[in-house]
């Protein structure tokens, strides 16, 4: 096979050199055709990614005043964002989720992936599909359903508590709301992360741990010393996606906010705050600045995480 491939290559380069003028052919192959094929994507990418992003950056340096119209103010919106207690309140909420919910979710996903990959569990397809199912549900509907389950009026947990003469669980209270949101996100995304890790595990050739099995290594040893290190790239991927998703949290608190508006205010997460600023208060410039600061926070967290894990792996 190798030799055959080499032979075709030779023939083709021969033909190529005899056909149209070399410069034209070079241009055609290196610029013309690739960019022609890329054109649809690049156009859309420019219109719906690069230009909006640039535009947001641009307007974030201006302020709209009732008197005097739109004025360039430099970094003033950013300074205001850094001093804005509402913004940092939201950042604090998503950071709490990031530090507590994400490790719980990914730890659970990893345990499930390892169990599904092991010899211990039967009915693997049933479990895998069942765990993955919430991913197929729109996050809006997931949040709606949990909102009802949490409800003090029709929620089954409240009903159960009443049967046993216990106080109703305070899912949608000041102290309960962050765990409640964390639960929705965990419910929705554990299966997805599990599948990513499970697929990575499946691609590990079994010969790699057959030898260890013969040598009497326990399933735990194999998981700890062989499987987990091998699927580290997949785990890193799930962490980065979780960081991006959690810091941008919007749907779940927004839906629950319709049920308990006094518990989830409109600056409960930075994303909700930017939305409120932009679409309720029409403060587009400031909203754009808030979005950029949030984007910066997301970038810093994912980047630092990748840097740290890369270091760790090189050592």
């Amino acid at each position: 096979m190798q030799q055959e491939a080499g032979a075709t290559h030779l023939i083709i380069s021969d033909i190529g050199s005899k056909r149209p003028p070399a410069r034209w052919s070079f241009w055609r192959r290196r610029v013309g055709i690739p960019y022609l094929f890329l054109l649809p994507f690049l156009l859309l990418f420019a219109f719906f990614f690069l230009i909006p992003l640039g535009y947001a950056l641009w307007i974030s340096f201006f302020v709209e005043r009732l008197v005097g119209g739109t004025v360039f103010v430099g970094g003033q919106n950013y300074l205001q964002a850094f001093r804005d207690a509402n913004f940092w309140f939201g950042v604090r909420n998503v950071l709490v989720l990031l530090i507590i919910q994400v490790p719980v979710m990914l730890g659970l996903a990893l345990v499930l992936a390892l169990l599904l990959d092991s010899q211990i569990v039967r009915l693997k397809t049933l479990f895998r599909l069942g765990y993955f199912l919430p991913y197929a549900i729109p996050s809006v509907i997931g949040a709606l359903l949990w909102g009802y389950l949490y409800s003090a009026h029709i929620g089954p947990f409240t009903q159960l508590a009443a049967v046993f003469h216990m106080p109703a669980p305070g899912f949608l209270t000041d102290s309960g709301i962050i765990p409640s949101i964390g639960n929705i996100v965990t419910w929705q995304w554990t299966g997805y992360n599990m599948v990513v890790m499970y697929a990575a595990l499946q691609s590990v050739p079994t010969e790699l741990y057959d030898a260890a099995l013969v040598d009497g290594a326990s399933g735990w040893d194999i998981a700890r010393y062989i499987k987990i290190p091998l699927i580290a790239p997949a785990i890193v991927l799930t962490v980065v996606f979780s960081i991006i998703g959690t810091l941008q949290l919007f749907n779940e608190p927004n839906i629950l906010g319709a049920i308990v508006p006094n518990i989830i205010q409109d600056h409960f997460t930075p994303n909700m705050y930017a939305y409120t600023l932009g679409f309720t208060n029409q403060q587009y410039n400031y909203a754009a600045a808030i979005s950029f600061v949030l984007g910066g926070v997301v970038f810093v967290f994912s980047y630092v995480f990748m840097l740290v894990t890369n270091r760790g792996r090189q050592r």
Partner: protein
Amino acid sequence: MAITESIPVAAPGAGARQRAGRRRGWTTRSLIMLFMVLLLIYFILPLFWMIVSSTKTNEELFSTFGLWFAPDFNLFGNLASVFTYDNGIFLIWLRNSVYYAVCSAIGASLIATLAGYVFAKFQFVGRNLLFAIILGSIMVPNTALAIPLYLLLSKVGLINTALAIILPSLVTPFGVYLMRVYTEQAIPDDLLDAGRVDGAGELRIFWSIALRILMPGFVTILLLTFVGTWNNYFLPLLVTNSPAYYPLTVGLANWNSLAQGFGGSQILFTLVITGSLVSILPLIVGFLFLQRYWQNGLTFGSVRS
């Protein structure tokens, strides 16, 4: 891939422990199965509750236990109210969701396949830079885009149109990345060269040779984009403000706010619940039948990196 370096070699000569471990494992095994079953119940619970509740009247939602059926079966009555409430607006949302998702999915997967194929098979000027920018864009939070996107779309008069939802959904940097990886694995250079020797144009080679081989990847992106658009809430929330253009997600969220506003005295609770059931049915069916493709999409990104 530096797989082989990091494997510690297990101590030799511990052969018989394996069988002993298996016998000891009986209780452990039962405990693990219990754990797995409990989790399965946890993941299924909200869906079970939804199915049960969609068979109840609004009064029964309050008066009967949430996790079991009421004496009478009211699913069809609820379905009828979902589809007729407010002059059948739900049907319009359903149609919108289908329309947005189908158009986005077909367009996005074609565009991403074409782009991924080019990145995989052509050495062109600016390739690495472009690809780095596209990959980097995955990291940019949607929020940073949402507000300017809204402003720009309203400047060109696209608010409350299908295009405002479909066009931004056509850009799938992750799809381009997946297709690049997939093309590199699936299509040997020789095959394309053979086509060129036979005098086929590049477009013809893509259309009648490459695309056929890339079909599984194409379907994966089709599916991921379909689900992504079907489930999208933030973008349509921004770019539509008339119920006639809502997709199901925004419509249902709207019903939910209304229901909460009335304190549940209206039939809206059952509407939201039964409507949710209807709107996830196509996804669940597609999910069960096409799960191979789902899994593809989630995996090749991670396995290769």
